[in-house]
């Protein structure tokens, strides 16, 4: 293990000193910040929409109180009380952009129908704004019935639906964000470290191409070299995530009202990070083994190209898992080791109650697969890394496993 740590330290130092790594490390959060800020920035360049001119026909003499309410809601209308005849006002509305005409008359009171005329150019936002008038109008109607305050309040109260989903879990009404935010964070970690896991592949292949492996192997065992690479690139991936968090978390806390820290620092996050690490170990072992079998990336065979696709297997499950997180396909994805880290993250982010038995089986399969893959990759790595001048075929790799 001491030797593995030496290799890990070397791989880590070699990569974090690399200019292109540093650039990509900073560019990713920078891009996020730009894309996050861009819509707001563009909005700020747009001229403020002009306040609509609203003609009010106030036969009921209620606009004074309503106007105050509208203003209190931050709605900017340029209102004008009018007693002119309706036809000339409608003419006005028809011929002038951004104008509206609201009629508070007896008919509105009796039929409960507020008539609003708008110019065809009127922003859609106005229709939502005008809804604010309904509640006070209703209050006014009730007040006309000369009921006691209690009766008035009783009638005025809206009826709403209180639906409660019954599940085995008594912890009802969990905020979905408590699972979703750690889940997304786990997903980011999984993605980030699996991507750096691909660098294990490149590193093994490079070491073979540069013919350094044999010198290194005179000082340590092949498995130590492989483990060192896996640990080293894990540290690279995690540092990457750490830098992103250090840059992006304060930014999000500053710019967004969403209480991200509250949702993120929960035990679930640790569990999701654990799943991500297992995912990394599985793919890193595969990449290390296969990476040691060829030195020329340009002549990669179909088989080796296919290996690069493996981390994307969970993407196949996105649709079925989102539509039914407890469905049979989601379960298959949970048990299949190549997809289980990704599918587990997706499912557990969505499910209120976690299927612990399934989680247990899935993790057991995943850990067993990591162990097997590490063993097999170690065998292939030990032989492959010392074969010079050609890429190994699948047949050869199978043969090496028998040694």
């Amino acid at each position, binding site marked *: 293990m001491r030797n593995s740590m030496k290799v890990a330290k070397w791989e880590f130092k070699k990569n974090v000193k690399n200019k292109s790594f540093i650039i990509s490390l900073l560019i990713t959060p920078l891009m996020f910040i730009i894309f996050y800020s861009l819509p707001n920035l563009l909005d700020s360049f747009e001229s403020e929409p002009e306040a609509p001119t609203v003609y009010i026909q106030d036969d009921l003499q209620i606009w004074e109180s309503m106007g105050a309410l509208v203003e209190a809601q931050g709605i900017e209308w340029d209102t004008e009380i009018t007693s002119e005849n309706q036809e000339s006002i409608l003419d006005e509305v028809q011929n002038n952009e951004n104008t509206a005409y609201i009629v508070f008359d007896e008919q509105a009171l009796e039929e409960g129908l507020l008539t609003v005329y708008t110019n065809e150019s009127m922003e859609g936002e106005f229709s939502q704004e005008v809804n604010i008038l309904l509640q006070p109008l209703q209050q006014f109607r009730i007040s006309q019935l000369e009921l006691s305050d209690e009766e008035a309040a009783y009638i005025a109260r809206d009826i709403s639906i209180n639906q409660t989903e019954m599940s085995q879990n008594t912890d009802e009404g969990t905020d979905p964000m408590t699972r979703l935010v750690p889940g997304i964070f786990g997903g980011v970690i999984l993605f980030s470290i699996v991507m750096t896991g691909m660098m294990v592949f490149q590193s093994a292949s490079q070491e073979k191409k*540069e*013919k350094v492996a044999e*010198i290194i192997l005179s000082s340590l065992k092949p498995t130590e070299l492989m483990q060192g690479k896996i640990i080293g690139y894990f540290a690279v991936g995690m540092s990457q995530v750490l830098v992103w968090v250090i840059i992006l978390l304060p930014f999000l806390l500053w710019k967004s009202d969403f209480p991200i820290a509250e949702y993120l620092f929960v035990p679930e996050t640790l569990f999701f990070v654990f799943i991500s690490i297992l995912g990394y170990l599985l793919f890193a072992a595969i990449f290390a083994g296969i990476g040691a079998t060829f030195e020329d990336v340009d002549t990669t065979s179909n088989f080796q190209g296919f290996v690069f696709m493996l981390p994307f297997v969970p993407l196949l499950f996105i649709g079925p898992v989102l539509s039914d997180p407890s469905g049979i396909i989601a379960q298959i994805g949970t048990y299949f080791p190549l997809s289980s880290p990704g599918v587990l993250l997706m499912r557990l982010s969505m499910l209120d109650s976690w299927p612990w038995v399934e989680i247990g089986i899935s993790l057991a399969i995943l850990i067993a697969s990591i162990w097997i893959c590490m063993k097999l990759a170690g065998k292939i790595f030990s032989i492959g890394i010392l074969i010079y001048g050609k890429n190994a075929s699948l047949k050869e790799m199978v043969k090496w496993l028998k040694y």
Partner: protein
Amino acid sequence: MTAETLRVEGVGKSFKDKRIIKDISFEVRKGEILAILGPNGAGKSTTIRSIVGIMYPDEGSVTYQGMKTGEIPKNKIGYLPEERGLYKKVSIMDIILYFAELKDYPKKKARERALYYLKKLGLEGKEKSTIEEFSKGMGQKVQFIASIIHEPELLILDEPFSGLDPVSQDVMKNEIKELAKAGTAILLSAHQMNVVEELCDRLFMIHRGEKVVYGKLDEVKAQFGSYKCTLRGQNTIASLEKLPQVNRVEQNGETSALYLQQDINPAKWLRQLPETINIQELSISRTSLHEIFIDIATDKNLLERNDQHA
């Protein structure tokens, strides 16, 4: 007798059904340079890899100062493989220090030694350069430094001179001699027989995975080398082969090389030459190591016949 550093005993290795080496036995002593020779594919690299611990022999044993395979401290062994290279985008100093760290050698001392050797081998001030900026020869010097940075007690050099110009070869030869003088046991594989003759105390020759020659250089030459008579004149091969104590004849135009039997007396042999032989020029010399090597590599009969005498 100087202390034995490495002992290889009855080592054999097969890949699937193919036997690569068989019953390889030799030892390397403190302060001596032992050459391991043989044509390409003879099994030298497999033997070396078995010693270094990159491969495990199927049979036999490798003992380092009394310690068996598995117990051998890797930090006591320096290794320059035949297939070698260095990280392309990392500075020379960083690479050397990494190799030193792998051998548990103190960083400060390693840095001092690296600077000392870089200066000695004409690479002063290049410690921050990357290997991409170097010629092949310069790169090879760095690889050599990396293999001795941790002051190994046993140094294994597989083709250290390949690709080096004569000046660099001399520099490298001197370093190897100095290391041996300082007590390092050196196992050297090389194809340049003149270098081997100059550097090595003893040699071990391997062919088709088996030992063919092993001993001190003088002894080997005396045992297998015998004499060679180079003759210029118009003679047929048949007439020359009839001459007494001639093992083999090679002819190229008017020049014939007569490989003589082991125990001849050159003066006596010259006196008995018949007058019918056409002699324009004649010289007699010891067979060189190069020729012994060629004989083995091309399966000529010289050794076989001499073996019978030996």
